[in-house]
């Protein structure tokens, strides 16, 4: 593509191919500027190099789809986690493609930062509800791709908060949107489209739920490499949807680097969290455990490709926990704290052999790991895709830390999966050290297939 020179006049500094709301990152490299030195955006060339690498890796078939960008280096083998962390530190995670059969934020490993925000719809009538989902879709499409927000001249305040500087970087942002059962009440005429498995969140015997932090008509989870990207996205989406929805509760989360490297991120109890998870690269397993399949009995057709999304906000009473000796801690979890090994094994990902330990002599029958996933054929179908983040909300009334877990999981059927697992966990010894206080059941909507599609179109059309 040739760019004719205009020696006596200004040059285009990058006509953007897609109009006032560019859907791709604009070059942020050095532009011809005035006499004043401008920022040369030191990260930018690296990002472009990185993007080329990502494309190359994708073409070579290394890792496709959502994880494609993680496999950007051909010269040195590096784990996806290492690469992601390195780029997260630089704020340069590649864009995660927004369009697809499923929402892009469901399968990836937890990112460094997340925010989960529940909203109630305030739109009046179905048409405004469509406007709301179209607005969320449009903003998510822009934010996940990155680009330069349009200038407004003298027509109003700046169109962007500026939190990420003049050019919005994607930094791995994913936007995952779900709907709660309350959206299907009489306001929008959606009662006959209620998904079969979508109910209000069931309170379990060990819960201490705060009604102000439970449920919501919609949930939005924003995950990315850095807190600024997540916050920028939240401000942007809220700004474009003020008349359509109102935030009900919100929690921020983070995941830690695996320590030591090559292991699995730890939660605030000091234990690795989510070691045993279904294999997201196994399409058949995802179709069995995560995605709602077309033609599922009782499920409206529009839910196909979606996934039930459970959020549980779980306080961890870490001061109490820290006063418990290590053997008792490990018996409650079923793993070694230092290494993540099952108590009966010598590697992290080893499968515990419960058949050899029917009395629980090595791994107690009440260990969290053993109850959650007994590893039997009968319980294989109850496995969930677990995606946990840590949260930090300051202190409580007695000066203890208010920290814990933003537990999220995705599944095909809440009753068969999350509730079955949680039912097995009722009364486990760990309950003394944790206190679930909020969250909700949602259905993560099917993906947005292309530019003409929007979130919840199948539900609302």
């Amino acid at each position, binding site marked *: 593509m040739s760019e004719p020179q205009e020696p006596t006049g200004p040059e285009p*500094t990058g006509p953007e191919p897609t109009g006032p709301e560019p859907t791709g990152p604009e070059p942020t490299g050095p532009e011809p500027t005035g006499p004043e030195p401008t920022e040369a955006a030191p990260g930018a060339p690296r990002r472009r190099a990185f993007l080329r690498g990502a494309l190359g890796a994708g073409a070579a078939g290394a890792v496709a789809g959502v994880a494609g960008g993680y496999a950007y280096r051909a010269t040195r083998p590096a784990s996806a986690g290492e690469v992601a962390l390195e780029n997260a530190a630089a704020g340069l995670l590649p864009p995660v493609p927004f369009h697809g059969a499923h929402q892009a934020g469901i399968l990836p490993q937890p990112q460094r930062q997340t925010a989960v925000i529940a909203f109630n719809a305030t739109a009046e009538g179905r048409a405004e509800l469509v406007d709301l989902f179209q607005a969320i879709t449009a903003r998510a499409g822009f934010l996940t791709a990155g680009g330069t927000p349009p200038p*407004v001249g003298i027509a109003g*305040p700046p169109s962007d908060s500026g939190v990420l500087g003049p050019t919005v970087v994607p930094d791995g942002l994913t936007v995952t949107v779900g709907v709660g059962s309350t959206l299907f009440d009489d306001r929008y005429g959606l009662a006959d489209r209620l998904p079969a498995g979508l109910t209000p969140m069931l309170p379990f015997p060990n819960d201490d739920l705060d009604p102000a932090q439970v449920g919501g008509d919609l949930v939005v989870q924003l995950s990315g490499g850095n807190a600024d990207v997540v916050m920028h996205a939240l401000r942007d989406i809220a700004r474009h949807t003020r008349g359509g929805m109102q935030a009900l509760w919100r929690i921020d989360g983070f995941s830690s680097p695996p320590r030591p490297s090559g292991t699995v991120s730890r939660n605030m109890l000091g234990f690795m969290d989510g070691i045993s998870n279904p294999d997201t690269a196994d399409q058949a397993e995802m179709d069995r455990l995560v995605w709602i399949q077309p033609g599922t009995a009782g499920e409206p057709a529009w839910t196909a490709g979606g996934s039930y999304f459970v959020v549980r906000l779980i306080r961890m009473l870490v001061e109490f926990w820290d006063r418990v000796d290590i053997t008792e801690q490990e018996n409650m979890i079923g793993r070694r704290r230092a290494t993540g090994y099952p108590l009966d094994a010598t590697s992290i990902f080893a499968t515990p052999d419960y058949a050899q330990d029917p009395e629980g002599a090595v791994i107690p029958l009440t260990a969290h790991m053993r109850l959650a996933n007994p590893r039997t054929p009968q319980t294989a179908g109850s496995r969930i895709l677990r995606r946990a983040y840590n949260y930090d909300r300051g202190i409580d009334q007695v000066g203890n830390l208010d920290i814990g877990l933003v537990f999220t999981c995705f599944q095909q059927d809440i009753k068969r999966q999350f509730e079955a697992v949680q039912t097995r966990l009722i009364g486990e010894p760990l309950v003394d050290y944790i206190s679930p206080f909020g969250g909700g059941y949602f259905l993560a909507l099917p993906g947005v297939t292309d530019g003409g599609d929007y979130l919840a179109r199948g539900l609302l059309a």
Partner: protein
Amino acid sequence: MPTVRRAALTAVLAVSAGLLAACGGSTPPANLISVNNGGCGGNWHLARPGWYTFQIYNSSSEAATVDLVNPADGAVYAEAEALGPETTSPMRLDVGSGAYAFRCLFEDFDPMTGPTVVIGGRTPGTPAILPVTNDDLYGPARVYHAYVAAGLATLVTQADALAADVRSGNLSAARAAWLPAHLTYERLGAAYDAFGTFDAEIDGRPDGLAGGVSSPQWTGFYRLEYGLWHGQGSRELSGVADALDADVHALRAAWPAMEIDLLDLGLRTHEILENALEFQLTGHDDYGSGTTLATTQANITGTRELLTVLHPLLAARYAGLPAVYTWLDRLDSLLSRTKTPNGQWVPVSQLSISTREQIDSACSQALEELAPIAAITEPRIT
């Protein structure tokens, strides 16, 4: 493959910058628009529609405002405001079909307009908006001034009655008289700055005062509200009510000589409700009467008056104006529906979550729709 295409573009730009540098270190970059009080941009060209970033360089020794305008009618596409001497500011816009010229304004000089560049065809770009001038705003300001004068005339009568009720110890009558008087004041939202120190005396909060609600420096409507709804008696409150009455009279007497800053007319179109969202809809400014929803409605009335006086200027300049009214109407109606069947207001804390969400949502959307008006009606010199 937009990524590849952009990479190619960047390479071209880098090369051209390199060539320019090679031709002589001081050669200015191609998108530089240099202005001083002898010239506004010089000869310049645009090849085609698209996104451009001009670097506006003020080579003079005094501040300048540089607009990119349509020379036919003076409509402004983009602006570099108050650009200091020897400084550069980027000006970015989507250039569409139309006529473009830089216009420079230096203190003590007549505005200068540089050469015109025309882009043919029918490509849409960043729209230009006709600037609003001081002359445009004098009329609206006069009308608003008269609106405030009328409000103050009502207010003095109400404050007289309120003070009389407090002095005579008829505190239930005082509680009934307090709200209409306060709402009259709250409808005058755009004038608070013009009121000077009167505003803090008449409608100040205890925030920031040592002692808070016990501070003797706390005066005005909220102070009186606090006393009337917290069991304070006539003896304790007479001084408060009398001072309020005196302040209101003094303000009314001073008002004819007071001026509304022309800039405030546009700013207040969203600032009044920004304050309502911050202090009324949160319940912050409920000092006992539970009437912050009524105050919010009074604030809407004040906002509407501003929109009315600015309407002739906004109608041709702001495509979002109908949405402003849509959301103000919705908010207004939601607030009215919170009243009890016998017409009493309830504190925000007694509203259901869903009602509060509806109200907060409508107010927030109204604010988003109102926000551009301040930029559009900022007085500019043409």
